[in-house]
Every structure is written in C-alpha cells, then in structure tokens.
C-alpha cells in the first residue's frame, strides 16, 4: 500500500513536470510536428482517408469506361484533361488509373491508413504505456508517409502520366519508358514515393515492436494482451521482415532504369530499339516483389482482424472464443505468409515442382483462417449482441473474409490457377478477402474508437445507413466478377469489346459499375459523419461501449502521458464480458480477481 502511494506521488510529480514541459505547445508542435501517439494516429487516419478518396474516385472513373467503353463522359475530361479527349478515356490513362488505385489502396490506405492509425492509437493506450518507445521516430514515420503521399499525388500530374504498369510494376514494362508513357517520369516518382513509404513504414514498425515488448504496464502479460495488440505486433514483425526486400527490389529497378544495369533486363527490343542489356531476369523482380507482396496481404488483413476480435467480443458482450487459438492462428498465418509467395507466379515458367510446394503451403493457410472464422462465429453464439455501426462492419468483415477466403482455395491450387490466373476471378478474390475485409475492419475501428480519438460520438443512424449501402454494394461490385473471370476475361483490359466471346459480359459490367458508383457515393455519408461528429458530435463518456480494455480508463480529454495519475495495473485478460459472479456485464482489466475467482 505504501509502495502504491509512493508510486502515485512519484507519478504526479512526473506529470507536473510533463505539463510544465509542454506548456509551450503551439499549433505546430500540437497538430503538425506532434510526437504524441494519439495525434500521430489521427494524422495517419486523415491522410489515409484523403488518399482513400482519391483511390476510390479513380475506381469509379475506370468503372465508367468498363461499363460503357468508348462512350463520352464529360466528367472524364473534367478530371483527366488531355487523357480523355472529348470525354473518352485514353487506354494509357485507364492503365494508370488501375495502377494508382491499386497502389493507393494497398499501401496508403490499408497499410499506413489502417495499421498506422490503430497501431499508433491503441498500442500505448491498450498496453498501458505513456507513449510510444520513441515519440520522435513515430513523428518521423508519419512524415515519411506524408512525404510519400505528396510524391504519389504529384506523380498524377506529370506530362507523361503516372505509373501505369500495374501496382505490381513488373519490369521490363515498368523499366522501359519506351514501352509505355507511364514508365517515364511517373514511374520514377512512383519509386521515390514507395521508397519514402517503406522507410516510414519500417521506422513505425520497429517502434511498435519495441513498445509492445518493453512498455507493457504491470500485470499486462502477453496472454492478457487484447488481440488487437497481438495483431499489430505480428503485423509490425511482418513489415520489418518483408518491406526491406521490396526496397531492394525497387532500388535494383531504379538502377536498371537510370544507370544501365541489367538486373531485370535481357535481350530486349522495344519500340524498334535494340537494348544492350543482357543477363538479367524479370522473374527475379517477381520473386522479390512477392516476397513482400504476400506478407503484405496479411500486413493489411491482420490489423483488421485484430480490430474485429475486439469489436465482436465487446459488442457480443462475450469473451472472444478461443483466445489462445486466435493468437496461434495469427502466428501460423504470419509464418506461412512468408513461404507462399510463389502462388502469384505459378505460370511464370518456374519449375512445376516448385509450383506443387507453393500449392501445399498456400492451402495450409486455409486452416488457421478457418479457425479464425469459426471462432468469430462462435463468439456471436449465445451473445447479447449490440449492433453499433462498428459491430455491423465487423460482422460484414467475417462475411467477406469467408466469401473471399474460400476462392483462395481455387487460386492457391496451381493446377486451377492455370486458367483463372490474372482474370477477374482474381480481382474478385482479393478485393473481397483483402480489400473489403480490411476496409470493413478500418471502418469498424473508426466507429469504435472515434470517441477515443476525438472525444465525441459519431452519429449512429448515419453509421447504419453507411454500413448497409456499403455492404450491399460491396458484394454487388465484386461477386459478379467471379463469373466474368470464369468466362476468361483478363484483368487490366481497357475494353473487352475486341473479343466477341466477351460481348455477353457487358451487362454484368454495367451492373458492377452501378454498384461501384452507388457504393462510392455512399462513402460521402461516412466522410460527412466523420467531420460533422469531430466538431459537432455529442460529447463522449469515458467508456461508451462498456469495454474492458485500458484505453477506456484514460480520460476523454487527451493529455500527454495518457493517464493523469499512475498507469493502471492489469489483473486479468481483456475479455471478461458477462462473467458469472459480476453484476455488470463487463469487468475492466484493472479490476482485481476476487478471492477464488478463476482467471480465463
């Protein structure tokens, strides 16, 4: 007891000191060059949302072209200028739009926007730390991301157009400006932007790992961590191990483009010009790219799954089912994700035996994924479900995770991949399992932790409307693509009018575009709700969802150091919801175990 009091006093003294130190907070140190993890989280979120608006808007533009190829839309000329003379989109611009849409959504929205926001916001608050291990590196991490976003946006305005070789930027197409206009200055800026992005992401990830390992509060053992933190930790480890490989792939590509090396180039004649490059292999790039590229899928997905675990448990008023199995499956998925990259390359001509190996490892991932899905569903069973907008999006995530995961069993099978590789079947698969699931996880996170970020509540009814419009149009957009894929329609086709066999797919394309436009417009509801609630929403209570985790023990008003007094001590896991023996249907982690009470 005496010790406790001492702690308290010490902490108070510490905090007084803190306050004093930060009295000089001005606009720049508070909102711009902040080293407070809560502010940095908000910076990531708002930047990610801004990029997301660009990315989604681009998809609406190219969907117009796909539904009504060759027709004139004045809006295209308004936004694309010389790339859409008389409102008809240029094929090069079509490829640029799909490329930048992919890049922005995968990296800027679902990697930085999702992981950057919630790792930053929740790691210190949920483990009971005053801030990240290094606030300064955290700030640097955001500013690298901000700079890379600026460069990516600038690349949209160069004379020869932005990068347009697909988000995977396979050389030689991306290496040779003669091969397509987008491989000129646009591609250079793409590489600069991604280099900055990777640097920022690495700094951020290292910080997350160090913080989780070292700064957990008293009593917060690894098996008491909320699953969000487990997901963020494993995500950060994946990033640290895989992003450097992409960086080296990108650097070698820079050398090939600008310094005459031949890492990826050999025996090429392009636009009538015989190149001198010899001995390189484009397949090398694919190996390096997908060594990141596949873990990247889980870098995107795991934080969304972590958020979902938290939201589903809290709103079912039940413990997450199979907590240890959930940790185990996160670890299994993370490990396997490093040895499956070859399933993106079954038909590159690599040794068929290698194809078999990658088929084996790839299909194994279905097992931990199935465990996760079943555990989510069992968490709902006999729950007392409270449908907050966050809960709706989390249930939506489970649905898309199952729907998209199942088609992975088709694509991960090298034999079946032969005929559906690079068709719309693939587009359907990864958009549902990775794109939708992750973005639903992100929405769930925003609705759930908005009160923690802004001290105000988002409007629930608008959240409901936003969810249902988004959910219906999401399936409406991507489900029909399975069928166009099975009809043999390749992805990244500017138009399918050149092949009469695809003529009967045009009606489906129109339906998809209708849903895409509807779903895109529905996001305005979210944006409106977000900014309206930020300034005008009702003031948030301290623990609006009756949640167990530590972030809700911190005051609504943000302060440096998160807790005014001592950091709370943790006595139990995060999922004691509706535990017998307690009147309330939640028992915060700070509540000591009663005599004879069983821990989970």
């Amino acid at each position, binding site marked *: 007891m005496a010790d406790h009091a001492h702690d308290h006093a010490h902490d108070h003294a510490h905090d007084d000191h803190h306050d004093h130190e930060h009295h000089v907070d001005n606009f720049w140190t508070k909102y711009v060059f902040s080293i407070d993890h809560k502010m940095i989280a908000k910076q990531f979120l708002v930047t990610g949302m801004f990029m997301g608006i660009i990315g989604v808007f681009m998809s609406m533009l190219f969907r117009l072209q796909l539904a009504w190829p060759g027709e004139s839309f*004045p809006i295209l000329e308004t936004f694309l200028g010389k790339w859409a003379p008389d409102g008809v989109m*240029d*094929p090069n611009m079509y490829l640029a739009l799909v490329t930048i849409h992919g890049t922005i959504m995968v990296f800027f929205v679902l990697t930085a926007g999702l992981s950057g926001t919630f790792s930053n916001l929740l790691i210190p608050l949920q483990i009971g730390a005053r801030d990240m291990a290094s606030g300064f590196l955290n700030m640097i991490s955001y500013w690298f991301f901000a700079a890379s976003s600026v460069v990516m946006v600038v690349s949209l305005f160069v004379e020869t157009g932005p990068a347009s*070789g697909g988000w995977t930027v396979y050389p*030689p*197409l991306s290496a*040779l400006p003669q091969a*397509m206009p987008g491989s000129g200055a646009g591609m250079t800026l793409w590489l600069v932007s991604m280099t900055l992005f990777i640097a920022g992401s690495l700094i951020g990830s290292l910080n997350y790992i160090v913080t989780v390992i070292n700064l957990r509060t008293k009593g917060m053992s690894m098996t008491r961590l909320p699953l969000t933190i487990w997901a963020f930790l494993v995500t950060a480890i994946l990033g640290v191990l895989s992003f450097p490989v992409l960086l080296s792939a990108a650097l070698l590509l820079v050398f090939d483009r600008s310094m005459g090396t031949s890492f990826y180039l050999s*025996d*090429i*004649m392009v636009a009538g010009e*015989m190149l001198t490059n010899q*001995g*390189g292999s*484009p397949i090398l790039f694919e190996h390096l790219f997908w060594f990141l590229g596949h873990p990247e899928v889980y870098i995107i997905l795991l934080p969304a799954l972590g958020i979902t675990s938290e939201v589903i448990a809290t709103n079912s008023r*039940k*413990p997450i089912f*199979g907590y240890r199995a959930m940790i185990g499956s996160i670890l299994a998925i993370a490990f396997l994700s490093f040895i499956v990259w070859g399933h993106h390359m079954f038909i590159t001509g690599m040794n068929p035996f290698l*194809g*078999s190996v990658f*088929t*084996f490892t790839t299909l194994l991932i279905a*097992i931990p994924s*199935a*465990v996760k*899905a*079943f555990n989510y*569903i069992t968490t*709902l069973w*006999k729950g*007392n*479900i*409270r449908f907050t907008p966050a809960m709706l999006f989390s249930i939506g995530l489970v*649905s898309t995770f*199952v729907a998209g995961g199942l088609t992975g*069993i088709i694509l991960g*099978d*090298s*034999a*079946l991949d*032969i*005929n559906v*590789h*690079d068709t719309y079947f693939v587009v359907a698969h990864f958009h549902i399992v990775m794109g939708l699931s992750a973005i639903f996880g992100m929405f769930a996170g925003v609705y759930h932790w908005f009160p923690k970020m802004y001290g105000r509540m988002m409007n*629930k*009814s*608008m959240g409901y409307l936003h969810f249902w419009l988004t959910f219906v149009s999401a399936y409406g957009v991507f*489900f029909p693509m399975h*069928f166009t894929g099975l*009809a*043999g329609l*390749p992805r990244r*086709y500017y*138009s399918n009018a*050149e092949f*009469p*066999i695809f003529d*009967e797919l045009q009606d489906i394309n129109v339906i998809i575009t209708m849903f895409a436009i509807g779903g895109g417009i529905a996001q305005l509801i979210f944006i409106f709700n977000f900014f*309206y609630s930020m300034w005008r929403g009702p003031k948030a209570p301290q623990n609006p969802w009756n949640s167990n985790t530590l972030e809700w023990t911190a005051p609504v008003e943000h302060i440096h150091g998160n807790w005014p007094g001592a950091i709370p001590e943790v006595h139990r896991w995060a999922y004691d919801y*509706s535990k017998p023996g307690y009147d309330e249907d939640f028992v915060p982690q700070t509540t000591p175990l009663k005599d004879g009470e069983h821990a989970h």
Partner: protein
Amino acid sequence: MSGIMTLIVLVLAVLTALQLIRIFELSSKARQTAEYEVTDRDNNNQGWLMLLFGFGLIASFFWMLNAWLPVTLPKPASAHGTDYDNLMTISMLVIIAMFVLVQPILFYFAWKYRGAKDRKATYYEHNNRLEFIWTIVPAVVLAVLIIYGMTTWSNVMNPKNEQEPLVIEVYAQQFKWTARYAGQDNQLGYANVRLIKDANVIGVDTLDTKGGDDKITTEIHLPVGRPVLFKFRSQDVIHSAYFPHFRAQMNCVPGMTTQFQFTPTVTTAEMRQDAEVQAKVARINKIRTEKGLEAYAYDYVLLCNKICGSAHYNMQMNIVVESEAEYAKWLTEQKTVAETL
C-alpha cells in the same frame, strides 16, 4: 453551368444530411437516450436486417449461378482440359458448400442473439474439442484437395508423350503474336531478339540449319488429337499466352524461353456444332445485331493476359483446330524461313 448545378446539388445534400442528423438526435431526445446509444429497437431492426441480408446473399448467389453460369467458358477443347474442369467442379462444390453453410449461420446468429437490455450473454471462452474439430476437418478436406490438385498439376505440366509433340513457337511483342512452326525436322532453329533485322522479324538464326524449314505464321492451326508443345518467347515486356478454351496459359518472358504442352481434342468446326456453344453464339449475335456489329462464329483465340501496354486489351491471334489433312494442306501453303529471307 453543370458546375454550378453540381455545387447546388452538393450544398443541398449537405443540408439534407444536417437536417437528418437533427431529426435523429431529436427523436432520441424524445426517447430520452443519447443518439449514439444502441436501443433494443435498434438491435431488433439491425438483427432482422442481418437475417434478411443473409437470405438475400444466398438467394442472389443462386440467382447469379442460374443467370451467369452460361456465360462462363464452355466445355474444354483439350485433353487435360477435362481433368482441369473436373478438379474445378469438385473444388467449387466444396467451397460453395462451405459458403452456403457458413454465411447463413453467421447471419442467423447475428439475428438470433440480437441484444436486449434484460438479457445477459453466456460466458463461454473456449472449447478445445470444438476447436480441434474445426482445425482437423478443414485440414482433412484440404489434404484431399491438395493431393488431387498436385496430381492434376503434375500430369498437366509433365505430360507423358506416346507420340512426339508438334513443336510451335509463340512469339509475343507489343501488341501482337507471331507463331513459328518447327517444320520438317520438328526442331526450331535458334532464335534471339538480337538477330532481328529487316525481314527477319523475330530474330531467327539464319546460320542454324534447323531453322531453314521453320515457318512463320500469323495464325495458329493445330491438328486435332496431336500433342502440341508450345515454346514461348517475348521481344519486349512480359506477356502471357492465354488459351482459355484449352485451359492453358504460360507467361512469355524476355530473355528466357518457357513452354506448355496440350493436346487439342475438339476441332473448331465440331465446337461450333456443340449445343451449349450454339446457344452462346446465338446470344452473342443477338447483342451484336443490336449494336450493328458483324455476326460472330465461334473461334478459339489466344489472348494476352499480362499487362503489356496501351493495346494490351487487343492483343490476339486466331487459333484453328482442324483435321490432320486440313492442317497439312494449310501448312504447305505457308512459306519457310529459307524462302522468305
């Protein structure tokens, strides 16, 4: 003008949204709860919507199967294509079964356990037996699929040849295909992009004696029932030779040669007689007549399926499968490399 209109619409939309929010807030105030609090009525409404969505999802899935299965690829035109389609059908049945089983359970639970203030959830944190079951069952199902898939893959990629396959090179460049037949000796002469000069458009080595009888063509003709070994090269960027009707695909990579072998089993003429294909062609021609396009008769086609530049979407070559006699006749009409260079 349209700019001003857009602006007016936007302003009106924002005003509407503001009014809506006020309505939501006022009606919650009337019920003496905060707007953000989830009431029993909300849970009820959202629970029912979940159930409705679950039904809708499964119903629309079957509607799509019914409406759109006919637009997918018709029966395969190659020997291994049948094995491919069998594997696809079985794998599809497995995942469809999972889909129609798991999705309804999810939405049913969401509805069934919609919350109410006077209820309490059951504290149920884990059950090793259950978790064991749903680890082992998927593992067993996947083991079967993996073994079946690997066997098929291995048979497709390492075909056993009872007769010597016909060797054909498929040469890719932005944005067209060229084919080279191996000629009398059934051996392709050496070729490299560096040897491209004037009329020697795909860089055949004129000093290589195996190459003189090679024939360069702009269409692929294949004799039915004979295995064909395709060798792929690319001149500039990565392309992918996609033969959807034959369930075959292989990337064409600059600087290296790749290959894929299959045996065509259905001639173009026979395929055009197939009932399913005729129905498909009739539907397509109905669309084409409406658009004022010329009528279409079913053809096999080679597509590019790896992004390769601005005209990627129109990089194609016609493929004709015909009898051995028709094929021989066509081939004799083609000029050899020795004749053209």
